[in-house]
């Protein structure tokens, strides 16, 4: 969906409909709709809600959940919490980073994958944990990462990576 080029009035009304003095809910609505926070939408929302633009921007940059850049089609999220770190999540990050050719936090140039790290997903028994498009891959090793991507390449017509359970 394009966030440019046409009148946004209706969309802004829709996005801010449950605005109750807190901007975070509105930002969640925007992110849900566009996958990230487009600048022109944030400007319109600031006008609509009466928040100053810098306040909106402060909140948007404060929380890791909000993205100001478009995310890739598939989001690969590696847990780097204590348990995952101890069990070698950094190796999984390294391997993913090498395979995708991007640093953690970035998106591949073809817009297919975003590589992210998160501090804890609360599933420490599965450490180290990688989440690909809401599919949880438990006890990930570099070898398993490579296998995951081979399987994905084989089923590349599917939108998601196969669940690794």
């Amino acid at each position, binding site marked *: 969906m394009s966030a440019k080029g046409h009148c946004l009035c209706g969309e802004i009304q829709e996005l801010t409909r449950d605005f109750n003095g807190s901007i975070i809910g509105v930002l969640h609505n925007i992110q849900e709709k566009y996958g990230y926070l487009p600048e022109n939408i944030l400007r319109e929302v600031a006008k609509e809600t009466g928040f100053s633009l*810098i*306040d909106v921007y*402060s909140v948007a*940059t*404060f929380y890791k959940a909000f993205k100001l850049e478009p995310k890739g089609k598939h989001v690969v999220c590696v847990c780097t919490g204590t348990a995952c770190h101890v069990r070698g999540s950094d190796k999984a990050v390294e391997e993913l980073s090498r395979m995708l050719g991007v640093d953690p936090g970035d998106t591949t140039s073809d817009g297919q994958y975003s590589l992210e790290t998160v501090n804890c997903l609360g599933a420490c028994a599965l450490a180290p944990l990688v989440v690909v498009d809401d599919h949880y891959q438990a006890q990930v090793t570099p070898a398993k990462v490579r296998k995951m991507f081979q399987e994905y390449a084989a089923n590349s017509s599917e939108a998601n990576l196969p669940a690794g359970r």
Partner: protein
Amino acid sequence: MINFTLNGLDVAVEKGFTLLEAAKFYGIELPTLCYNEALSPYGACRLCLVEVGIPGRSRLVSSCTYPAGEGLYVRTHSNRVIETRKLLIEMYLATCPGSKTIQDLASKYHVTRVRFKQKHEECILCGLCIRMCREQMQAKAIGFVERGGFRRISTPFEKKSEECRLCGGCMYICPACQARCQGPQEKSAVCNACLNLSPPCLERFDEMMCYMDPCVACEQNSRGEKSER
């Protein structure tokens, strides 16, 4: 009126006074970096800290944000306060050694060394410029972005802000912007530039008097002549 104990004296201030205002009212000087009378208190720099409570059950609070309360036992220059304040100044020196305000504080409070990893930042995140922009200039052009170690002051989307009128209020009020005077040891983190000069004024604080404002010691000797460097 609110009655409480300030450095052993029974004092009374009007309701709504903060401890910093009360201390100022009674002539007790407390150092501050993020405080300005015309702006809302923020409690970011912690330099105005005081000890509240009886010994053994006391705690350190920032006096600029702590309201004066009935029966408080407040000490502004206890050993704990002085030591903590020196440590704070030392950390500011480690962050921002290029600031005259901070160098002057260091000289005034006898901070002569830095035990932390030396950085050369240009901002101490005191938030004065943001409050100036917001409260006095009614502009809301700048604010904090990101968080934790990446926190910094910026405009929306890192672009020139439409709200900004280039008034310069942010630079006027910044305690880190004014460059320190260039003394004989300008390469080191602690200025102490005035150590080797005879003071032109009556007061003497361990030979360091760079905090005199304007700082004439770096430029002149006691006879008003330009010193030889």
